């Protein structure tokens, strides 16, 4: 039923909107994964053709066709199966991710800071990923890039991939809120400790799959608390996936039926998480 709804929302160009209107890369990538998981290959193939048509010359993907900038959504394209997307396009997406860092990690910025005599901060030691090039790295895009690279590393265990996964995970651990969990990436702001968000806590935990430490334990406790309180489908999807990645999703957990799925990614991601709960992973390596 839900898969039928997804297929029915496909735009004529082959992509999917967030709610209605033009096709965007994020809903298209998640929906292709959900359709492939359900064995619905025909609409998925049309979606893949839309994805391939929107690739940019630098090997990255724009958030929407016509936008002249590759962004974080390249990680979502890299999560698509290489055998479906095409080896060349997939490899270029991975290469774009490996080359992309937050602006604060670039040589130019670091050199300038050195010239100005500003000490390097612990939070800046490890490169993460920005939403858009020339901006700082944040938790959301870093978590998604790690998921994509981790999946690729199982297929192609290259040192360059491992290195970015490890530094990305250190970035996440350095940006954890004091109480555990993550917000968008500001650990502290003027005069207060920033508080974690459910959605970014789930995303970061998914990206930290296999990392066991007191920090991740604190984050898992926060995620468990959010799971009981949260009323957002997007946040619950990521919390479930994050807890599942650490084997901590409560046994018999039932997704509340009254939670509204507001956007297409809410729905497709929900289907992918439900598959993951059955042991079929399309987002986690």
């Amino acid at each position, binding site marked *: 039923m839900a898969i039928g709804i997804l297929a029915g929302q496909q735009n004529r160009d082959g992509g999917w909107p967030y709610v209605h209107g033009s096709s965007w890369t994020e809903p298209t990538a998640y929906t292709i994964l959900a359709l492939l998981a359900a064995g619905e290959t025909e609409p998925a193939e049309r979606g893949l053709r839309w994805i391939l048509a929107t690739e940019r010359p630098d090997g990255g993907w724009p958030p929407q066709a016509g936008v002249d900038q590759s962004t974080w959504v390249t990680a979502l394209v890299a999560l698509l199966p290489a055998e479906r997307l095409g080896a060349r396009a997939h490899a270029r997406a991975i290469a774009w991710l490996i080359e992309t860092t937050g602006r604060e990690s670039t040589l130019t910025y670091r050199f300038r800071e050195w010239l*100005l005599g*500003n000490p390097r901060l612990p939070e800046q030691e490890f490169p993460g990923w920005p939403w858009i090039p020339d*901006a700082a790295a944040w938790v*959301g895009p870093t978590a998604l890039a790690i998921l994509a690279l981790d999946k690729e590393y199982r297929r192609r265990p290259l040192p360059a991939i491992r290195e970015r996964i490890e530094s990305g995970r250190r970035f996440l651990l350095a940006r954890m809120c004091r109480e555990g969990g993550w917000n968008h990436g500001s650990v502290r702001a003027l005069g207060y400790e920033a508080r974690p968000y459910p959605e970014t806590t789930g995303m970061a935990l998914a990206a930290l799959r296999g990392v066991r430490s007191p920090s991740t334990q604190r984050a898992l406790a926060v995620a468990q608390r959010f799971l009981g309180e949260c009323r957002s489908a*997007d946040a619950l999807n990521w919390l479930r996936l994050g807890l599942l990645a650490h084997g901590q999703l409560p046994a018999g957990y039932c997704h509340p039926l009254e939670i509204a799925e507001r956007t297409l990614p809410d729905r497709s991601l929900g289907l992918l998480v439900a598959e993951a709960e059955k042991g079929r992973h399309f987002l986690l390596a």
Partner: protein
Amino acid sequence: MARTLRSCERTGLQAGHPLGPPTPQGKVGRTLPSVISSRLLTRRELLAGAAGTTLLTGCGEERPIVPSTVSIVRAPVYDQRLYETVRRMLEEHRLEVRGRNVVLKPNLVEFEPESSINTHPLLVHAALEAFRAMGAATVRIAEGPGHRRNTLDLADAAGYFKTVPSFEDTFVDLNLDDVTRVRPARQFSSLGALYLPNTALGADLLVSMPKMKTHHWVAATLSMKNLFGVVPGGIYGWPKNVLHWAGIHECVADLHAAFPRQFAIVDGIVGMEGNGPIEGKPKPAGVLVAGRDRAAVDATCCRIMRIEPLKIEYLRMASSGGSHITERNIRQIGESLPVVATPFELIPEFRWVRMENS
């Protein structure tokens, strides 16, 4: 202090660390003037001021500025009386919206319905009803929050679904709207062209409806800063960090220039003071402030908050060095400023913007 604030906001790091001011294009001199002292005029401001003066006094002839009308209306609480209050307030401004498309842009920030962080839904609904009654062809509510991606969930938590009938049909998530690449009419930042949402660009009247708040990076966030919410997160991310790298004040001024068909209604019934725009304390001011000239509206709000508007960098930039926002160039209607003025607490870094006679 401006030096530290800007760097922290760009990188999401702890305030107070000695990270220097990264320059937008690696040109060290570019941001130096604002680093030297918050109180000194920057080179850009001097140029803007000079340009403004030239415009005003071209050929040695002084041209009077047409005063902007700003209304201050008492509104002690969020209750049903707001509908009548807002209707009357808009009538006073004689807005011609018959057959036009109106977009209301509230400020939605966090999932905290009990706090004073978001524009109150009752006020937004009152404005929606008033514009409909004035004959607007369409009235939509549109917002693109800067931190949280699940906008509709945030609007739900903020009470919009309960307050506004058929809210989902009325609302546009500006973060995910279709976009057009535009170059603002005047540019103060290094951004160049910017993708902006078609819903906001296509509005005949974009009504900025912020909360009256102090802000830990720019001292006060009002109708002009509220336009950060039109920059699409779907393109630029959450937060919209490119704006921080390009200069917050400069980008506020850019966005002000990008949307000339605007009106502002500021929710000062209960504002936020101290460490705003998120961690501050509720501050009842009991007023609505409205007008067509957002810089004049924001300057008036500052005076109510007992903040000197000419010390707010983006207000000076957007008003020809401040000439348009002096008290004598604003035609105040409704309540008088001294009667409604109530000092908003400021964090120590911004105590210097306090009006001197406060």
